[in-house]
């Protein structure tokens, strides 16, 4: 048929079924292109929104590789005349992208030092052998560490500790139990609540700081961020621990022999070696750099300085960094930020914000509630479908254009993007624990919905009663 062999036709049909979202996006973008530009929206803004729709549908459906989505965004920005090639190139690279790149490389460098066994020792020394204390310890350590070094790093390092405890308890590490659920979720949710704590907790925080500065709304320092968010992080630790314990109460109330075996296993690794000490020292320098120098040099340059030191001191080689860094994610976030900037500059963000306010005010009456609903609830739900950084990159310019105090709205959006409790794809840590085969998609909802609601309420309370005291 049509001159194709049966085999070729089958290949084409296979491609069509697997790439249906790409085809649909392509057809929709053409249709929207020929729609009349809505009142109040510039022609460039109209085309920018077409790119946003295409990008979102392709990211959610994962029809094509993420780097391909990133490249498509850049191509469409130029081809649809949203900006010049040089304009697109300059909006693609920013300190936020440097930061994401630097923090991913730092993560690889830290993981490479074999500090996970030290971490195990730290956890069990603090918690002892009662299971509820171990759960609390997992949540606390995951939250505190991920607030500084990024959740994916902590998630990867904590996973073997949890699995070793499960194995030492005499359980099959290939079979799901309440003990495996509670320990693994304490890592994932601990990392999620921790990621709000500092700008280096997640790429989305750096993106929001970048937007606030780029749009001339506010300059937020590393310490400013900590002051705003850390109280919420601390409050969430016992809440998460309690909800997880109540949802997945394991039959093993103590883990005596399991903890003892783990101590023996970890003791074999000996004391901290020189490389590990140097690695910790460099990270402390990076942390101090973020606090004291990021207002001058930017978060990204400080993170890259840390990578420079790790490479120069021979603590990791480039091959290892190159192999384990997710370059596709860096490309995608660069493109998403570029798209966010174009949304702002073409007025697309302002138009969407205005339309959203108009329509939602019919339901909610009060503009403050509308703003809260979009920046918290919509962001929180979208982050469970997309990724937190992509959500902030796309929604950031819109919520910042919705009026009110942009710092409050910006922080609410960034924090809500950490409510990655409901799906496997919500965050890298959720995917890491799911990849063990011990957590099903349905498990995420069991405790996730409770945490989502409580986190939304807590954020509302913090934003109403605590943030105004800081007068930022």
């Amino acid at each position, binding site marked *: *048929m049509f001159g194709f062999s*049966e*085999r070729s*036709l*089958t290949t084409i*049909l*296979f491609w069509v*079924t*697997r790439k249906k979202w790409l085809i649909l996006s392509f057809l929709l973008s053409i249709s929207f292109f020929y729609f009349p530009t809505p009142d109040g929206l510039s022609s460039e803004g109209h085309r920018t929104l077409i790119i946003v729709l295409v990008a979102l549908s392709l990211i959610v459906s*994962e029809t094509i*590789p*993420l780097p391909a989505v990133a490249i498509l965004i850049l191509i469409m920005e130029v081809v649809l005349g949203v900006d010049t090639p040089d304009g697109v190139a300059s909006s693609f690279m920013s300190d936020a992208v440097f930061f994401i790149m630097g923090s991913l490389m730092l*993560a*690889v460098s830290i*993981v490479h030092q*074999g500090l*996970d*066994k030290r971490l195990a020792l730290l956890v069990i020394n603090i918690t002892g052998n009662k299971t509820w204390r171990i759960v609390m310890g997992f949540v606390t350590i995951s939250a505190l560490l991920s607030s500084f070094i990024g959740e*994916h790093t902590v*998630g*990867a*390092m904590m*996973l*073997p500790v949890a*699995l*070793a405890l499960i*194995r030492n308890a005499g359980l099959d*590490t*290939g079979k799901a139990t309440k003990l495996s659920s509670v320990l693994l979720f304490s890592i994932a949710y601990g990392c999620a609540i921790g990621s709000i704590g500092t700008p280096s907790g997640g790429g989305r925080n750096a993106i929001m700081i970048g937007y606030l500065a780029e749009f001339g709304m506010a300059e937020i320092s590393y310490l400013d961020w900590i002051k705003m968010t850390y109280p919420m992080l601390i409050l969430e630790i016992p809440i998460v621990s309690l909800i997880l314990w109540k949802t997945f109460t394991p039959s093993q109330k103590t883990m005596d022999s399991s903890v003892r075996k783990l101590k023996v*296993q970890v003791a074999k690794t000996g004391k901290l070696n020189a490389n590990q000490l140097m690695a910790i020292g460099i990270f402390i320098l990076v942390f101090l750099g973020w606090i004291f120098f990021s207002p001058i040099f930017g978060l990204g340059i400080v993170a890259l300085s840390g990578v420079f030191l790790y490479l120069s001191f021979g603590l990791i080689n480039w091959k290892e960094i190159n192999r*384990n*860094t*997710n370059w*596709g*994610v860096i490309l995608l976030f660069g493109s998403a930020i570029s798209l966010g900037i174009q949304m702002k500059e073409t007025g697309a963000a302002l138009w969407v914000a205005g339309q959203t306010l108009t329509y939602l005010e019919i339901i909610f009456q009060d503009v403050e509630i509308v703003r809260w609903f979009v920046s918290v609830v919509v962001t929180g739900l979208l982050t469970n479908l997309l*990724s937190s950084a992509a959500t902030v990159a796309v929604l950031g310019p819109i919520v910042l254009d919705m009026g009110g105090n942009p710092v409050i709205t910006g922080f609410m959006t960034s924090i809500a993007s950490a409510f990655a409790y409901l799906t*496997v*794809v919500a*965050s*890298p*840590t959720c*995917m*890491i624990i*799911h*990849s*063990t*085969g011990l957590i099903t998609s349905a498990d995420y909802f069991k405790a996730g919905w409770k945490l989502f609601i409580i986190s939304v309420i807590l954020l509302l309370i913090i934003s109403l009663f605590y943030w105004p005291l800081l007068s930022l």
Partner: protein
Amino acid sequence: MKILIGISSKKYSEPTLDVGMRIASILKSSTTILDVGGKINEFSYKDVSIANELMESWDLDRPGVEVLEWAYNYLIREKYIEKNLNEIGFSKNLLVDKGNGRSEVFLKGVAVKNLSLILRNGDIIEELRDEVQSFEYDLTIIGGSGKRSMAHDLIQYIDSSIFVVNNFNLKQKYRILLAVDDSPGTSKVVKFGVRVAQAFNIEVDLITISKDGDFSEKFRIASSRAEKMMRRSGVTAKVKFSEGELVNTLVDIAGDNHIIIMGTSSQSALTKFFLGSKPLDVMESCNCPMLIVK
């Protein structure tokens, strides 16, 4: 002949592995046992890979390895691989990363030519299709899923013949129900029928179905040739002619104690895509294992 056996878990895959290895040993074929783990989303695959590497440093198996270990132990127990490997036992060090998320364990088979265990991650149909296309398998053996879309994709996109081990009971005494007609593909279907019958040492019902009960000369010749081929191969076969609609008749006669063997549809790929096909309808309705010969 090259055979690919798709497994997914210790809990559900034993019948599939059992059927697959019986056929592979009769045919002395080059055999691969494949476990496809869940798809890792692109935002996280590097992080998951780092986590897996750390797990190995703790002497913990990365996900999927336990399924391969189970398959390995099955092969030892059923004497499909050499004894000296039995003494060594399964070790994840045997797993060789072949790139693109594909890891492989090479084994020295006794009853089969080459035997390997493969671990991949991703969408099951995409991974199976890629494996079959890259290594040119003749037969893919997989467990039944009960989903129409899965059955459709298997029939439509996997290039090899497909044996769906649906509701297979190791204790059940099966017969083969082999659909014969006058199409050119029938002789290949009969050859497969002979091999499966030999693998399980079971008898065959050669069935020819006509909607209006009119069995033309061509049908009778095809049936007679099939019966002759069975007899020459030492397989006991009974010839049957039934009137009725093909799908319902075949499914009714098969019940749960037959292995259905039929050829793929001769319709174009486009027609099959939009309108489905008889093999797809049978696969969807039947309550027993089924082999579709391509």
